[in-house]
């Protein structure tokens, strides 16, 4: 992998003092820009990025578009009793070809495409919110523990160990059971909280490990020697240096959390109808897998595709942000 700035540096070493006027052609190449360039060279990662982008955009705007085009909302149940049945994809109720339901309908006659897209909203949101929580809490917690070290570090990380040792699924179930919400939306919020509250533990450990190795680097000593305060050193000097692994781990957290959500929905603790997530759609679909396979196939495939893409993207990011590793 070419590292152009190496070559640019060479001549300046020799003729440092009487360097001729260069006219400032050397624009600032941040490490980010270099990483971005490397990422774009990775086909799988680009594929992943495109798929994730398409699915995200489709989930965000798809339901509105469908409503505009056909008047169907994700929770629209036809009033006509003869339509309260599962119609195969691309078929009209009378069996002829039709674009009205490209993915068919479910047992109540709801449009599967609209529900998959709406499920995407919730699934992605669960993943993103849990990841944001893990970024906010996990990074600051881990960085603080790692930088302060000693007894404080010990205390903070033992707390993480305790939380770790509790089976998270039980925490989530207890949370959902104790704060039982009557509305489907309340249930989703509880799910966010529950998943977010356990998702930051690994992040805290990763960041702490990074900080432990970073805090003894000379630039931290140099910052301290210029009188920079401790919080500023942690968050302005050290945390940005941990962002490589943090971004990679965050990207890989999204699919993990989405899977967990699907699992919880599968158990019946997750998203309740009329709201949908890919997990809850799959749960509904699996009951009719023999007769109406499209009810399972479409949410299942969409979810699998998203998870694959996010993993490809995460791997690509890891390679891009850690050029030494990829050159091996």
């Amino acid at each position, binding site marked *: 992998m070419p590292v152009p*700035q190496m070559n640019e540096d060479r001549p*300046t070493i020799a003729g440092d003092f009487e360097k001729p006027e260069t*006219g400032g052609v050397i624009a*600032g190449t941040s490490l980010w820009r270099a990483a971005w360039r490397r990422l774009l060279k990775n086909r799988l990662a680009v594929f992943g990025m495109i798929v994730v982008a398409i699915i995200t955009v489709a989930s965000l705007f798809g339901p509105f578009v469908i409503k505009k085009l056909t008047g169907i909302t994700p929770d629209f149940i036809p009033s006509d009793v003869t339509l309260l049945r599962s119609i195969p994809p691309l078929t009209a109720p009378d069996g002829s070809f039709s674009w009205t339901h490209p993915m068919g309908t479910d047992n109540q006659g709801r449009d599967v495409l609209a529900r998959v897209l709406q499920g995407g909203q919730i699934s992605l949101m669960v993943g993103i919110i849990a990841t944001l929580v893990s970024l906010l809490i996990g990074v600051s917690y881990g960085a603080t523990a790692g930088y302060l070290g000693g007894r404080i570090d010990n205390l903070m990380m033992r707390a993480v160990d305790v939380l770790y040792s509790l089976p998270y699924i039980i925490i989530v179930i207890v949370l959902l059971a104790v704060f039982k919400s009557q509305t489907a939306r309340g249930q989703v919020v509880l799910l966010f909280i529950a998943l977010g509250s356990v998702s930051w533990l690994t992040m805290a450990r990763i960041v702490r490990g990074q900080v432990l190795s970073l805090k003894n680097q000379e630039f931290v000593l*140099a910052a301290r020697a*210029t009188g920079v305060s401790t919080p500023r050193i942690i968050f*302005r000097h050290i945390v940005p240096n941990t962002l490589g692994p943090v971004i990679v781990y965050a990207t890989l957290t999204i699919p993990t959390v989405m899977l967990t959500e699907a699992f919880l929905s599968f158990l019946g603790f997750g998203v309740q109808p009329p709201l949908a997530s890919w997990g809850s759609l799959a749960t509904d679909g699996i009951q009719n897998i023999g007769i109406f396979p499209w009810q399972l196939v479409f949410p299942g495939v969409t979810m699998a595709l998203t998870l694959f893409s996010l993993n490809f993207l995460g791997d690509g990011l890891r390679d891009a942000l850690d050029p030494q590793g990829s050159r091996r």
Partner: protein
Amino acid sequence: MSSSNGNLLEVRNLRTYFDTEDGEVKAVDGISFQLKRGETLGIVGESGSGKSVTNLSIIRLIPNPPGRVVSGRVMFDGIDILSLKEGEVRKIRGRRIAMIFQDPMTSLNPFMKISRQMMEVTELHLGHTRARAYEHAIKMLETVGIPDARARVDNYPHEFSGGMRQRVMIAMALSCEPELLIADEPTTALDVTIQAQILELIKKLKQVTGTSVILITHDLGVVAGMTDHLIVMYAGKVFEQASTSELFAQPGNPYTKGLLRSVPDPLKEQGELYQIPGLPPDVAHLPPGCPFAPRCQRAEEICQREFPPFVQLNPEHFSLCHFAREVYEESEGAVPARNGHV
């Protein structure tokens, strides 16, 4: 004790110990020196002799644990640094005492633009606004001889060569016009041509700003032309302390003599280069006598047994040796050595 006698910095009987698995390591063991305003002090010694620890102790940057300043006083312009609160020391660091480190490749934050790193110091200490700090950063880069500073100030450290980065470090260190600049082996990681440029730059800026400098190095060639006074450290102790010219001309310590002898002289066909036999001692397990005794050619039985006295040879010349006076008289009229590594 105060700045009335013209001393900017007075270190008295400083002891910094580290608690390790090997037991207590006396990294710095009873060091005293003074530095007048505008003067340059060189601290010379082998790796592990306590040079850096001495200076980190001065601005209270010893990692604790495992390190701790056991005793001593550091008076900076009449302020007892060791008894200050952390927040007060922070106001001195970077503002009145600045530091430059050995490896310019690692002492700049790779994720921050040069401009941000330089602005941070002046925003913090001089209360500069962003715009003002930015202009100041450019001005400082120009001062240290970065060509086309305005275009390069927004570069990242990896876009600078080693010598340029050290210039940036110097620019950053001097941007608040500190009274004391501590340069911890500022040229060790650079190649020889750049070394000369950086030293020349420090010297020039020192003349312009009147900053006092402590120059830590293991390179006798570096201190020769740069410093007014020299301290030779070995195993956490001051072995010899004198004005630079006197120390080069008439060393009063066998260790200093060994150092000077091991400097190559490019003008002479020397054959094999002299080296002091043996290795620096394990500071955790020092013998009861002189720490240099096992390697010393003139060591006698007393050296193994008794710790040597700190002998005053003349008003400004001290040597830690049982035979300081004899060595001092022997070396009278000897040819001084020039540049090279310890």
